[in-house]
């Protein structure tokens, strides 16, 4: 099916013009399971409180739903390379998700989702078994 001219997305930017993305791996320490929707709200509120709308926009933050592992309570947040310290700091102010107390621990940074999953979530590619 051909896309109409209005639906068309802009072409990809060349690598030098793209923003340098970083993926922050985090782990939620809590007693019970944590619902991603509530976690996302808590993280966004904390980041907006600490950094403000301008700071969040400048850091180009996005909480990735697809990467959240409910069993391990681990996930990834995307931001640009200059905003990583701000996001790290903002996450330390999350105290509650829903009505349970939590601590969000930043495990580290990575440049790609694949590398972050291998490094922090313990995922292994088939190449590791060859």
């Amino acid at each position, binding site marked *: 099916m051909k896309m109409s001219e209005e639906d068309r997305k802009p072409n990809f930017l060349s690598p030098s013009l793209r923003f340098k993305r970083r993926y922050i791996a985090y782990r939620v320490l809590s007693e019970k399971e944590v619902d991603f929707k509530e976690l996302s709200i808590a993280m966004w509120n904390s980041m907006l*409180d600490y950094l403000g709308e301008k700071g969040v926009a400048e850091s180009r933050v996005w909480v990735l739903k697809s990467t959240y592992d409910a069993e391990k309570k681990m996930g990834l947040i995307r931001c640009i390379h200059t905003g990583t310290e701000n996001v790290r700091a903002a*996450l*330390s102010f999350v105290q509650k998700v829903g009505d349970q107390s939590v*601590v969000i621990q930043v495990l580290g940074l990575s440049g790609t989702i694949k590398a972050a999953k291998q490094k922090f979530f313990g995922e292994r590619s088939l190449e590791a078994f060859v």
Partner: protein
Amino acid sequence: MKFIDSQIFTNLCIGQDSVEDMVRSAKDLGYSGVVVNCNYNANSDIRGFLDKLNAIKVDDMEIVAGVTIDAKDVIELKGLISKVREQVELVIVRGGRYAVNRGACEDSRVDILMNPHAGRIDNGLDEACLGLAKKNNVAIGISFRPILKTYRRQRAQMLQNVATNLKLCRELGVKIIGCSGAQNKWELRDARQMIAVADSFGLDLGKGFSALTTTPIEILQKNKKILAGEQVRGAEMVIGGNENV
């Protein structure tokens, strides 16, 4: 890297969780040592606290006893310091009142002046205080708990005072120490995240790391030697000096 949390409270004192719970949570967050504090005032029983704490061992974590002195004025402060100094490895003075802040900076038996801005509109320290702190080797401590427990305008004001103190300490060469000040395990924070908060208020990453690693380790090692009788308080140890002198 060896991170030390210089001030946590447990159910041996004003905290809510047991020492074991707190220490295990701290280990999960990447700390290799904690200073379990006792809130100390004129009526406290320090001996009982130390006996209970010495009986506890958790994995390979270093558990050190510390005291947080809560004094109303300088005379009381001096008296309380004399009582506890030779019993614990870390003496912290809770700041807030200017006279207490200055009294703590003047006394070389104090290790850390914690939160000099607490309960104040201003930052609680001036150049004279910080000059004395540098001379007497007193570190300025910033605890994360009060920041965590305030919101909106109060938090902004507190962060503003913290930023001022960090700037003054950096420019005048006074030691800085960061800690969680946690009273339960949910108030503990990852050391790297606390460094990131300090970084966003003008303390560069190197100094931020030393506030949670080298500075507390140096203070604890020095105090352990003094308590063991290997070193005299106020004296510097010189190794391999000039024999002709």
